[in-house]
Each structure stands twice: as structure tokens, then as C-alpha cells.
């Protein structure tokens, strides 16, 4: 029996959730430096969510789709490079893991929203960073207002927000949230042949809302919200980094 078949058997035995086909396929395609751009275009065009996200990444200064200067997937990849597609492929498992974590551990339905629809971060906010290196290099940044992070941490630990007086406890819970997200997306990268190692999360309070882009790479800014909580995630990567 092949390893692939074995893995499917084990995934069934252990009750793993199925992986999202379009993101896995896109990661595999982008992982190959000689990949066929037409095939990448086809995969993205088949998935309206991926397509919308790519156009958002390709038009970083636009406030809304009416302001896009890059309007097609082909143009986006031509102008910004295939690395753009890699960031999308990586962002999908991150976003799904974040949404699933909120649903599973907090019974909260977190929605992926356009960043222009969110309130700005408070000056001092929680910032979590996890870098990764190997066949792909980059970083994931998680940002939340401290009051939201306190509510999230209390919910996950089954406490009331008033009990979460110690900021280090809030940072620890948010660090685990970041670990869960990045662990899921690392699996996706490794399955596509892009082996990489995650650094331990760096959690702190910050007044700096700028997330640096990996040299030679692309960046996607993602925003999520419930009625009461907003979460911001930035992911940057260069898939063809030379070690």
C-alpha cells in the first residue's frame, strides 16, 4: 500500500476534516518553480473566494473593487508574480483554522470580511508573530485589540473576562491560537513539498500596526469579525527562497 493511501486510511481512522481541494492544488502548483501559469489561473478562476482575494492582494491601495486597476487573475499574476498565488494558498488554511478555532472553542461564527469594513486597531494592541523558514520563508502576524483578546482568552479557558487580569495569560492563549492556525497551514505547505519549520510565537503588546513584507515575496491582509470581536491576520511569504 502506498504512503498516500495509508495517509487516507489514517485520516479516516483519526477523523481528520477533509482538506480544501483548491488550496491544496494551488499550493502544489505554486510549489513547482516551472509550474504552468495557465493551470494556476484555471484553479483560481474556479474558486470565487480565491479569485476575489487575489484581486484584493493585487490592488493593495484600492478601497473597493470599483477602484481596482488589476481586474483579472491573469493580470494579477503577470504584474505581481506567482508568489501572490502562494500567499493565497497559504492564507486559506490559516483562515479556515482561525474560523474553526472560534467555532470550536468559543461557539462564535467568525466571518472573513473586507478590511475596509472593520474598525481600526487601537494604538496599543496585541501582536503575535510566527516566522517560518525552509523551502518557503515568511511570517504570519495576528493582531487584536486587547479587550477582544481578553474576551477570546476568557472564552477559551472558560473564565469571565474580569478574571483575565494578567496580560501574560492573554498573550499565552493568543499564542496558542496562532500556533493552531500556523500548524494547520504548515501541514498544507509540507504536503505540497514545501518543507518548513515554524519559529515559536512571539507575543507582545505593540503600537506598530505595520507588518513587514518578506523580501521578494507578497503579503495578504485578512480581516475577520463577529458582532463583538475583530481579528486581523497578515501573511507574507516568498516561496522560492534560496536557503
Amino acid at each position, binding site marked *: 500500500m502506498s504512503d498516500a493511501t495509508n495517509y487516507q486510511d489514517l485520516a479516516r481512522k483519526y477523523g481528520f476534516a477533509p482538506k480544501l481541494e483548491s488550496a491544496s492544488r494551488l499550493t502544489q502548483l505554486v510549489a513547482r518553480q516551472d509550474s504552468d501559469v495557465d493551470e494556476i489561473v484555471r484553479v483560481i478562476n474556479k474558486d470565487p473566494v480565491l479569485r476575489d482575494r487575489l484581486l484584493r492582494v493585487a490592488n493593495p491601495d484600492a478601497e473597493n473593487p470599483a477602484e481596482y486597476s488589476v481586474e483579472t487573475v491573469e493580470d494579477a499574476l503577470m504584474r505581481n508574480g506567482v508568489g501572490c498565488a502562494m500567499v493565497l494558498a497559504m492564507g486559506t488554511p490559516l483562515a479556515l483554522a482561525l474560523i474553526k*478555532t472560534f467555532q470550536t472553542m468559543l461557539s462564535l461564527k467568525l466571518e472573513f470580511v473586507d478590511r475596509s469594513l472593520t474598525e481600526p486597531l487601537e494604538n496599543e494592541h496585541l501582536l503575535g508573530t510566527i516566522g517560518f523558514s525552509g523551502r518557503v520563508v515568511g511570517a504570519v502576524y495576528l493582531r487584536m485589540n486587547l479587550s477582544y483578546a481578553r474576551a477570546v482568552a476568557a472564552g477559551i479557558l472558560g473564565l469571565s473576562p474580569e478574571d483575565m487580569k494578567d496580560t501574560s495569560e492573554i498573550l499565552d492563549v493568543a499564542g496558542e491560537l496562532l500556533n*493552531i492556525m500556523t500548524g494547520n497551514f504548515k501541514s498544507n505547505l509540507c504536503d505540497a513539498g514545501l518543507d518548513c519549520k515554524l519559529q515559536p510565537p512571539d507575543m507582545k503588546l505593540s503600537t506598530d500596526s505595520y507588518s513587514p513584507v518578506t523580501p521578494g515575496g507578497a503579503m495578504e491582509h485578512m480581516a475577520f469579525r463577529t458582532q463583538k470581536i475583530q481579528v486581523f491576520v497578515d501573511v507574507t511569504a516568498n516561496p522560492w527562497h534560496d536557503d
Partner: protein
Amino acid sequence: MPTKILSVDDSRTIRLIVGKAFRPYDVQMFEGSNGEEGLAAAAREKPDLIILDVTMPIMDGVTMLGKLKENPELKAIPVIMLTAESGRDNVLQIAKIGVRDYLVKPFKEDQLIEKAGRIVTLQKKPAV
């Protein structure tokens, strides 16, 4: 005699959540924050079940699992891997060394109790 469960995870948050999940049951919890501490606690306490993370500093979960299986006194202790990493190579490697089950984070406490309950006896504590 309470069921002995050892939780090995570098995240205090996960150890707290695991401890909370088993609180309604007649369970004695032990903790380790890396593979070295986990091995020492396993040798000392001889738990009925180990719940083990993969990525940890000092000694990771895969190394700890390998060392458990090499030790004649500890190799029969069932292990549930509790990790966010479900990549193919990782899962195949871990399955080859030998685990009873695998739970991917994020998880519901009910899922952990269900998986643990298939391996060890979980008796509800009497209501006070």
C-alpha cells in the same frame, strides 16, 4: 483508584483546557511542558494515558514517543497525539512509531473525552 492522565504540551493554555475537560471525571492529571519532562513524569507516575503535543522545545513529541516505545516499562502506555499538524509525513511517521489516536487542534473537549474514553475508564465524579 482514579485514572492517571499525563498531558504533555508546551502551551499552558492547552494543558489548562485538557485539565478542564477531565475535571468532571475521576482522573488524576499530571503535566509536562516538553518531551523531557513528559518522559520523566511517565516514568514516575506510570499514567494510564498520555496526551502528547508534537511541536515542543527541548524535546518534541515525536522524539518523546520514540523513547517511550523503546522503554519496556513505558511502551504499553497508550498515547493520543494532540496537535495542529496533520501533514502527511508527520502523521505517517507518528503512526509508524505507534499511537492509539490523533486529535487535530482546534478540538472540542467532548472530542477529547470521547477519544480518551475509548482507551481508559472515565468515571464521572459523584455530584456534591
